[in-house]
């Protein structure tokens, strides 16, 4: 019962924060609401028993990346952009897509959980060790390769940002 209550609370934070992020005109407000949304997602991780992801989400996204976002927003002068009207006239395409997705979601809500039939977690002995150990375990065994490719990806990102930002390479 308490779980359900917390789930809806965190889901509301995540979704409401997300909607406000894209509808606010002031970029600083958008960034603030994005923090709320990310914190809501962190709460959802905690409900799932993924403490490590919860901590990473708070420390990295809310603490690190969003602070950088705010710095950049305050460095760049966005007053002009905030006053501009949106100039693309494709709201009807967006409306069609949103109503399509809405119909799908409405169907899911009517059918209830039975519509999903998602995969069951593997049966067997209950998992005793904590979430952090499990993540470390799969990260360096089953997902070793993607983990290593991600390091190359980050290298490319660093090289690219230096290349774009420096006046003289």
């Amino acid at each position, binding site marked *: 019962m308490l779980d359900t209550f917390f789930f809806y609370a965190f889901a509301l934070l995540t979704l409401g924060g997300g909607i406000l992020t894209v509808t606010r005109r002031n970029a600083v407000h958008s960034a603030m609401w994005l923090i709320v949304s990310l914190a809501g997602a962190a709460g959802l991780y905690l409900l799932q028993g993924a403490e490590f992801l919860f901590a990473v989400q708070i420390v990295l996204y809310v603490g690190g990346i969003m602070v950088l976002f705010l710095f950049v927003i305050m460095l760049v002068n966005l007053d002009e952009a905030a006053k501009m009207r949106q100039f693309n006239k494709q709201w009807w395409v967006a409306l069609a897509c949103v109503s399509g997705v809405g119909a799908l979601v409405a169907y899911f809500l009517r059918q209830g959980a039975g519509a999903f039939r*998602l995969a069951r977690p593997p049966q067997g002995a209950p998992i005793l060790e904590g979430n952090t150990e499990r993540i470390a375990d799969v990260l360096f065994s089953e997902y070793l*390769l993607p983990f290593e*490719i991600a390091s*190359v*990806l980050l290298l490319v990102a660093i*090289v690219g940002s230096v290349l774009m930002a420096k006046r003289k390479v």
Partner: protein
Amino acid sequence: MSQYYTTTDHFVLVPALMLALFGCAVLLFEVLVFPHPRQRKWLLLFVLLGLAFAGAGVWRQQNFLASQGIEELTAFGGTLTVDGFAIFFNWIFLAASLIVTLISYRYLEVEGEHHGEYYGLILLANCGMFFLATGTDLITLFIGLELMALCFYILVGFLREDRRSNEAALKYLLLGAFSSGFLVYGFSVLYGLAGSTKLRAVADALASREPWDPVVFLALATTAVGLLFKISAVPFHMWAPDAYEGAPTTVTAYLSVGSKAASFALLLRVFLMPLGAAREVWEPLLAAVAVATMTVGNLAAVTQTNIKRLLAYSSISHAGYILLGLIAGNETGIKGVLVYILVYTFMNLGAFLVVVALRRKDLLGEDLDDLAGLVYKSPGYAILMLIFLLSLAGIPPTAGFIAKYYIFLALIETRHYVLAVIGTLYVAVAIYYYFRIVRSMFLAPLADTGPLTTSFGLRLALVVTGVLTLGIGIYPEPFLGFAQTSLAR
């Protein structure tokens, strides 16, 4: 799992390892060992070495599969799978990287943005493509795609002083990131359905469901949006003309063949294996996309006066033709897709090579009028361009004809008569706009008497692509056989 990194794992990973190592080596050496601009040709040597080592790795894998008589070799617990399909695509990527490297040296000097990072990024992009062709795990595929895309975002914006290049890079980055969001959402739903990120497990999970299952549809639609964006199919094509026009021409060439071939490899893997069970759902969807892609691509190309934009729209329309082969879906169709991608790589690269040669310090060389009377100035280039354009239009005896022939044959075999007729009609439109270039080259009076920007690498690349474009058309058997063996999955 007792051992994390076995000999098989290493054997399968070697090409990517070589590409990544040499890519990093180029980045390091540019700063530490060869800091002087005149020493950059040594970096070129490293790139060629890296490509050669990667090619040797692929070659050994090919021989191993043939000598053992096995169809596939999996590594990292099913994360990577080397089969004929992967090897086929890896050869295409390596060939594209090699040709682009050969032509870039002189071009970047002319543009005044010659930095060693360019070559490092080419190798690392190729590394990402390797994982797209070889990966059979959702996470690996996604990260491989991002690695490739990130390299391309930077390469597209490589001319930092050029506003068009800045705009192209930003547009490509924003739209690309948005489409990646869709793709990863679809992948996450697929993971939820299967409880595993391995494509084989996903395929098993989807096979036990109804094709019209709404959850499968959700995964299918979002995955398709992400993938169709990468191959620049309509309605997700808006980035392509701007990115192609703004990027340095060598990067445009690489983007139009390398990125497209790699994205098609991913699309084929995902749509044939895990989503194959939902075929009756995606077939009409993709048919609509293919028709729209051919329509927009061909009709929009008619009015272009910028050659790079024209070739961008033409490459959009080619994506439509390749999709037709996937819609037919029988063995001829998939073979047609593979042959088409192989042929498209060489003919499209060739056409861009001629555009690269037009660029001078004082001339952008991207307008149709810049080609005027090319035959009086450099008949060799004009005739090679004619061959590439005939091939792009699909006229025998060039390779483009063979490619289109197999696609249409497969459509007729599977009774998709309407699609075949539409596709054939658009070939006529394509001939019109390709021949606008031909008319400018052969019939218009010579406008610009300045010399072409040429180099040994460019001439070599032109000869290779020209010979292959004609050769595959005249004597297609070995290439068809190559595509056939890569089908045995």
